[in-house]
């Protein structure tokens, strides 16, 4: 009996200490983590709208969908003219849970400009083929002299899957992920998924689809709120 008490109190104390350390760390790092997340978000937005100005202190226009998920719309402006929105949407159906996507909505062309994934927990090497944009490097470029001048602007690296969203119409709301290029049927609607990352491909597509749907449903209210932000 006494033994059980000693054992359980030892385990209890360990857990207590662990809990204490973790809550302290959580509190101490919460602000810094939020800041890092926002900085990352703005960097991703700036990469999609290099010419756009984003007001970093402005709260995004938030629309809550019927499932209770939040969609954030940051207005992108050029010379005080609204050119588009950087829209954040989420999907819970990723292989590792939640995926947050950033869709660049181009208002003038009524097209998707670029799609990026800003938060995910997909498997490295498989799901990340869908979510991460990666530079194409060649070994012989290491010795070749660099001709292009160094730019400070963050360039968007290519991604086989995400680049398929470029220039699609923003009124589309039913994309289809197919297995291979042979199965491509409708070039407006179909996307070729990545082998080994079908679930991630579908989750990203769903998040983008949902973002566009929320945008279309609430277009007047979003545009109105973006206009109000302008006059302030």
């Amino acid at each position, binding site marked *: 009996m006494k033994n059980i008490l*000693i*054992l*359980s109190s*030892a*385990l209890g104390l*360990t*857990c207590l200490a*662990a809990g204490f*350390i*973790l809550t302290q*760390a*959580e509190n101490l*790092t919460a602000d*810094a*983590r939020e800041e*890092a*997340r926002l*900085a*990352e978000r703005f960097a991703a937005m700036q990469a999609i709208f290099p010419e756009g100005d984003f007001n970093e202190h402005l709260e995004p226009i938030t629309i809550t969908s019927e499932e209770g998920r939040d969609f954030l719309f940051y207005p992108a402006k050029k010379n005080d003219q609204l050119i588009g929105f950087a829209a954040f949407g989420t999907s819970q159906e990723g292989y590792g849970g939640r995926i947050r996507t950033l869709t660049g909505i181009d208002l003038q062309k009524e097209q998707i400009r670029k799609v990026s994934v800003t938060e*995910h*927990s*997909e*498997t*490295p*090497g*498989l799901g*990340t083929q869908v979510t991460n944009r*990666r*530079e*194409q*490097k*060649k*070994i*012989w470029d*290491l010795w070749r002299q660099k001709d292009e001048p160094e730019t400070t602007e963050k360039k968007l690296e290519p991604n086989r899957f995400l680049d398929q969203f470029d220039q699609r119409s923003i009124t589309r709301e039913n994309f289809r992920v197919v297995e291979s290029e042979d199965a491509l049927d409708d070039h407006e609607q179909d996307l070729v998924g990545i*082998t*080994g990352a079908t679930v991630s491909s579908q989750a990203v597509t769903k998040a983008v689809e949902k973002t566009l749907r929320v945008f279309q449903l609430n277009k007047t209210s979003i545009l109105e709120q973006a206009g109000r932000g302008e006059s302030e």
Partner: protein
Amino acid sequence: MSEPLRQEFSKGLWRENPVLVLALGLCPTLAVTTSMTNGMGMGLATMFVLFGSNLTVSSLRSVIPKKVRIPCYIVIIATFVTLVGMITSAYFPAIDDALGIFIPLIVVNCVVLGRSESFAARNPLGRSLIDALGMGVGFTVTLMALGGAREFFAAGTLFDYQIIPGWEHEFMLLKLAPGAFIMLGLFLALMNWHNARQARRQGRTYKPPAEMNCAHCKLCTGDWLKTSG
């Protein structure tokens, strides 16, 4: 470094290599070694956690009662993993970008628990730390070799740099799960063949280090409850 200490470090690299000899941590090994970069990321993140958990377990080894030691180790390791995740995402966004996805996977890495149980819990602090470094380096190098081989034969690239010009279509088998098993099997066979040959030359038969590897470990069978204390 004195001779025994140096051995404590170098055993992790070859003689008691965590993956190829002890067969520990195979789950993350198979899952993330799709490229050399990923192997290195996973290895470094694991080494960091291994160092922290060996440090804590070794310093607390006389305090923790034997019968509840495994749950205690798991709590300690999970705490370390969460702490590492929080700190990198708050203050080192560049590292978080590269290693962030590996950090949650370390909780399921039995290299960490295995070294806590079979080494740090029985050895003084200094030796435990050196053991953690050696095992960490051994794990990292093995994962890089495995990832490098898979990446090279799948796409002709290493560290994401294309080495063979004109390799356009990836040989997907090696990038996917079956390729991980095939490549790891080849590595293990090569290691066993080499060890057996060396042992034969010295006139003995090869035996893996006893009571160290996955087959001898009784953690997951629950036998540790009966045999200890």
